[in-house]
């Protein structure tokens, strides 16, 4: 009568299951190999009242995760983590907008939530690793485990994982890293997973309408956490040389760097948002070329393994940096920035000027396919 898992010595893997295609195939693959697995879903955000099917973390998706787990023959549990998600992902997202930055919530969610909190929960359940449906690879290098891009360059998600530590890598598994999205979907169809035809999830999974309305709605609904909206007046638009262009159409927090449409300043010239100044409720506009910057100032520097050695010829570490998730990458030199290096401040100097350095986004460092680490963009240089 006794317990199949009782006395089990086999390592147990917890698969993080969102109910989407990728994590579903991940669970199926590991179960199919005969590994001991459990599926864990995180209840992150209350979408009640929204039509949420096909969006990350909605109740219906958790139902899909459950059904896939049944198909794969593994036990599945839903863990409630909405408080943690709110405090570590959603609130910083809102605060970033209010501070005139362009947030990158998926980095926080992927590293902190999945490989910190969920890993801790998984260990309490007796699991020693967390598998996810990320398109990225973990390879054994000469000095230990290394994070690498996925073989499918179109789907590579290594950008979102740059804040992982070596210890987290040792407990992480990305079974899809060697596969293409097409192969994953084909496999799901072949084995008949109920999510085989499901669409891709969106980038900001907890926002269903416009981001700006979401941000304003959160502030309005939760004055205890956000106070009141700093202003409702339209931001003053200025050129980079200080020339006043008059009021724009919206308050500053509705603008992000690199944005072109919706500024409400007429005239023949195409104007882009070059900078957002919350204190002055001001937005700086300029031509596309004025978006170009020779580098960026980064904070909260993180190296996954040992920090790479500087190249004396260039005065810093040579590597390739991606300044947003779909950026192709540019060769650059990374060096500590002044005396503030104690806070992890770094200057990243590009070999070629880049457009749209958005404060709040991550700058992720690569060497070949390997992810070395990264930092968070404080400003353009």
């Amino acid at each position, binding site marked *: *009568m*006794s*317990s*199949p*898992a*009782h006395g089990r010595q086999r390592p147990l893997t917890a698969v993080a299951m969102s109910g989407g295609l990728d994590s579903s195939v991940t669970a199926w693959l590991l179960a199919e190999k005969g590994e001991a697995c*459990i599926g864990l879903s995180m*209840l992150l955000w*209350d979408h009640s009242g929204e039509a949420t099917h096909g969006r990350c973390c909605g109740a219906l998706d958790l139902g899909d995760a459950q*059904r896939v*787990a*049944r*198909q*794969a*023959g*593994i*036990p599945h*549990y*839903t*863990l*409630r*983590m*909405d*408080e*943690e998600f709110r405090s570590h992902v959603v609130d910083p997202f809102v605060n970033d907008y209010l501070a005139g930055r362009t947030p990158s919530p998926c980095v926080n969610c992927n590293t902190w939530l999945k490989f910190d909190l969920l890993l*801790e*929960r998984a*260990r*309490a*359940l*007796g699991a020693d690793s967390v598998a996810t449906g990320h398109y990225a690879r973990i390879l054994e290098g000469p000095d230990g485990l290394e994070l690498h891009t996925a073989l499918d360059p179109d789907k590579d998600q290594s950008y979102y994982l740059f804040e992982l530590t070596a210890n987290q890598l040792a407990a992480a598994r990305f079974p899809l890293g060697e596969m293409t999205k097409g192969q994953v979907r084909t496999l799901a169809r072949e*084995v*008949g997973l*109920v*999510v085989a*035809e*499901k669409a891709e999830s969106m980038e900001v999974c907890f926002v269903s309408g416009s981001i700006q309305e979401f941000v304003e709605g959160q502030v309005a609904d939760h004055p205890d956490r956000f106070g009141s909206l700093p202003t409702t007046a339209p931001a003053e638009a200025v050129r980079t040389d200080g020339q006043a262009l008059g009021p724009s159409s919206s308050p500053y927090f509705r603008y992000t760097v690199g944005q072109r449409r919706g500024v409400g300043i007429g005239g023949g010239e195409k104007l882009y948002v070059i900078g957002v100044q919350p204190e002055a409720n001001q937005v700086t506009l300029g031509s596309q070329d004025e978006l170009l910057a020779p580098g960026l100032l980064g904070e909260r520097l993180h190296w996954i393994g040992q920090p790479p050695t500087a190249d004396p010829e260039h005065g810093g570490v040579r590597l390739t940096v991606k300044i947003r998730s779909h950026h192709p990458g540019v060769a650059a030199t990374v060096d500590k920035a002044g005396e503030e290096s104690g806070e992890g401040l770094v200057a990243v100097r590009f070999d070629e000027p880049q457009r749209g350095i958005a404060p709040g986004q991550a700058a992720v460092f690569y060497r070949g396919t390997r992810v070395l680490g990264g930092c968070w963009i404080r400003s353009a240089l």
Partner: protein
Amino acid sequence: MPLSVTSHKVDSVAMNALYFDNNATTPLDRRVAEAMRPWMWEEHGNPASIHQFGRAAREAVEVARTAVARLIGAAAPEIVFNSSGTEAMNAVFWSVGSIAEFKGHVIFSAFEHPAAQASADRLESFGMEVTRIPPGNDGVVPAEAVIAALRPDTKLVSLMLANNELGTLQPVSKVAATCRPLGVPVLTDAVQAVGKVAVDVEQLGVDFLILGGHKFHGPVGSAALWIRKGTPFESWMIGGSQERHRRSGTLNVPAIVGLGRAAELALEELPHRIRQLGAIRDRFEAGLSRIPDARIHCRDAPRLPHTSHIAFLGAEGESLTIRLDLAGYAVSTGAACSSGVVEPSRTLLAIGLSAAEALASIRVSFGITNHEEEVDPFLAVLSESVAALRAVAPLASTSTSAVD
């Protein structure tokens, strides 16, 4: 996307698993299923119809009504069939409120089922005054506190017969003995008690009693509200005037037949069941002394024979529940609400436990399909799981689970 269940494999933990979560629901008794079967297959009449199909269905319903009435010492016409304890709870609160034109006062215990809590909140929002009486640290609501809260305009007192989480029995008859002469109706939610202990409406002296079939091996979706003869009642569910105008809607004959058969079996077998459940639970609780720092909540209070609620300080209850599930044992973290409570159980806080103790608690509720020999292997796994959890983790947050 296919809508059918396309299970390719059996969940690897489902095999040989033992079910110790009988307060959540109980397995359907095979004899009950057999009684229901013709009513899902060969027979199909509407009990309201004149013809022979209708007559046959009507007779089956009335046989069931008699069986349910006998189980609680009531008269058959006083039984109103419905779909769930939650429905019955809504019905009583609604009736009392609407007859009082939503004026006046109601009393209920602070650890009633969520259906009562939400109903009381609703009456409050409609303008009635509500007094919530907290349980003592022994898991029992003091009858004196309920009685002291009575007012000339009190329209209802609601006190559950047994608490779903702790299993503690409540002084319903004592409260009712004071309320009846004053003309204050008393409702008791007996969902967890019926089929586990002897229940008699006359002995209790209440005016409304609620029972649910799936807590004593009847089908889910079968329940009954007992309304003492002569008690004013106004139905919130109106329509075809079934159940003597007290619950409209075509009768669910298979469920009612199942409820009736389950009631019949519970009455016949009750002394045996109480002995069996008590023996299993006592052996389990005796064995808990081998696990360091295991605290049985409300151990000295009058309790249902099959429920144990235990804290293992330093071992997070939800993780423990999952570990036990992986090892093939189904228990519960208590009764969290499906709409989501991140907080520790209100019931546990109400009896004076700290949040840490509450979050480190699990509920084990044995059933008649369990055997004494299952206890010792379970204790071994439990002991091992508690030790493993105490070794790893600080308390993590709770998750959702379904309400009982």
